[in-house]
């Protein structure tokens, strides 16, 4: 038996999208709060130097908003991510904990400082002297950024360590300072300023005093713009630090799918920041709220989905496949690859959570076994229902009902690991056949779309020529 966990499968969207949805909300909330902490520090420094106490009114306003928006939503979705990844990807989480337990411990210390900091910052305005408050705000900002820095080290290790060292040493430093750490940190540091500016506008839109509104906007807008350009530059650097499997996915699937949305968001955000900088009085809630939604949904969703997708076939460190199988030996951690063991004995024998009555394939249970195996081997990355949004398998096979060819796909390219973004899945022939029979039967029984029924007759060709 291998040390595998039960597979959780959420029909239709897969556990990957559950993760993605929680993750996006979390990223919007947490980037806003980290970015805002630096905005506060910048604003308060100006208030202190130029003696403009009315700016503190804005800080208080934004701070209270942040407490409700970011800290509550952020602290609900943060543990939400933990729950979701623990069920979706138990071995991925285990791998990360075994590498980074002290990094996470450190992150929690900074997070505590951050949470206490934001309360202190909001409620101590006017109660302590200005210089002390300013120092407090800067400490809050640095603690916030430290949480981001530590998390980014972990996230970018998930993409890949970038060299053989870590596999040999297993050392936390080799894992943390991986090849795309700095680039990734840059992208997020830049974008946190953009998020903070966009949310800052949301708060500034409600300011009545035109002078205050103008002076606040004129500080926030350029910070957001600089952050945005820095983030884009770092993004190009980031692209250079990716492994080959990521580049293939990016060029073949992701850029065609998300490229336009990303350029649109970039242009829209730049135009918005420039416009508000130029005409602060035009900033109204009617503009600020939709812009916030557009930028956070269209901007963050593609970014997070891309990063999650580009890692395929791995979930972490290029040694754990997304379907929980250990892809290779990691001597530094005493880990042994499992692909060949599975090829020899089969998942039905080695996976501890296969129901006992499904461990041997019979004509009666073949489809059921196929379904279970498809869930274990494929469903972390693919939904199993036709039409489902997470690259569903029936559609990926273009509705094929030919068991022999589906089996050839699993027993050929997948067995040899010929497709860079999919795991090498090498299974004994009876298991391959069971999966193929299951997929073929799903396609056999799929609800037919109107006009589809005649595909396969010679008329299909004629229709093509007609067009």
């Amino acid at each position, binding site marked *: 038996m291998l040390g595998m966990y039960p597979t959780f499968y959420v029909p239709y969207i897969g556990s990957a999208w559950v993760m993605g949805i929680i993750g996006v909300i979390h990223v919007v909330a947490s980037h806003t709060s980290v970015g805002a902490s630096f905005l506060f520090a910048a604003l308060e420094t100006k208030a202190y130097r130029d003696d403009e106490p009315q700016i503190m009114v804005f800080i208080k306003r934004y701070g209270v908003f942040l407490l409700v928006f970011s800290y509550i939503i952020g602290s609900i979705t943060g543990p939400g991510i933990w729950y979701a990844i623990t069920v979706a990807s138990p071995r991925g989480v285990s791998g990360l904990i075994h590498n980074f337990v002290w990094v996470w411990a450190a992150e929690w210390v900074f997070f505590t400082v951050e949470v206490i900091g934001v309360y202190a910052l909001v409620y101590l305005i006017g109660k302590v002297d200005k210089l002390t408050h300013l120092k407090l705000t800067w400490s809050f900002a640095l603690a916030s950024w430290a949480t981001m820095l530590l998390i980014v080290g972990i996230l970018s290790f998930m993409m890949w360590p970038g060299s053989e060292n870590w596999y040999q040493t297993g050392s936390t430093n080799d894992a943390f300072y991986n090849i795309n750490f700095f680039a990734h940190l840059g992208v997020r540091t830049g974008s946190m300023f953009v998020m903070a500016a966009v949310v800052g506008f949301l708060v500034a839109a409600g300011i009545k005093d035109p002078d205050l509104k103008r002076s606040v906007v004129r500080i926030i807008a350029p910070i957001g713009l600089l952050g945005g350009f820095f983030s884009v530059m770092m993004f190009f650097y980031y692209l250079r630090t990716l492994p080959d499997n990521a580049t293939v996915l990016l060029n073949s699937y992701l850029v*065609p799918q998300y490229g336009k949305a990303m350029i649109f968001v970039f242009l829209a955000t730049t135009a918005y920041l420039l416009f508000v900088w130029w005409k602060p009085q035009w900033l109204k809630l009617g503009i600020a709220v939709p812009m916030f939604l557009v930028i956070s949904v269209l901007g963050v969703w593609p970014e997070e989905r891309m990063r999650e997708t580009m890692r395929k076939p791995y979930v972490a460190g290029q040694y754990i496949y997304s379907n929980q199988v250990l892809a290779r030996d990691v001597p530094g951690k005493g880990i042994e690859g499992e692909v060949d063991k599975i090829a020899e004995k089969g998942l039905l024998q080695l996976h501890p959570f296969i129901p006992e009555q499904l461990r041997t394939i019979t004509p009666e249970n073949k489809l059921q076994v196929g379904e279970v195996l498809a869930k274990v081997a494929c469903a972390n990355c693919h939904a199993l229902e036709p039409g489902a949004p997470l690259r569903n398998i029936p559609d990926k*096979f*273009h509705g094929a009902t030919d068991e022999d060819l589906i089996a*050839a796909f699993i027993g*050929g390219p997948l067995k040899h690991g010929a497709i860079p973004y999919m795991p090498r899945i090498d299974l004994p022939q009876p298991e391959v056949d069971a999966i193929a029979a299951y997929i073929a039967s799903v396609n056999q029984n799929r609800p037919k779309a109107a006009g589809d029924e005649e595909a*396969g007759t010679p008329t299909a060709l*004629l229709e093509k020529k007609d067009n």
Partner: protein
Amino acid sequence: MLRNTRLVGGLLLLAVTAYAPGLAHAQMADSGAGKKRAAVCFACHSENGISIIPGTPNLAGQDQTYLANALTAYRGAQLRQDPTMTAMAKPLSDQDIANIAAYFSSLPRDGK
């Protein structure tokens, strides 16, 4: 109505291919059946025969005999070997190969 025109069209096509003297293939190639059989192939070569996966060739508008020969060679696993295509060609019958070659060769080369 639509069904009827399709049916007539299908019959016409059958008639045309049956009498076409240029197609000197042993089997009468049925590109519609080829399209159906090739569904799994579309995973890599795409339905329009223009692949988006690096290292995977476009098949749209390729010479029909060449396609049939290529598939036969992969299936034989002597003349051409490839971990992917050797496995994919193995289950194909001669008729399948003729049909699939007819389908891909009939597609426009620009994928439109």
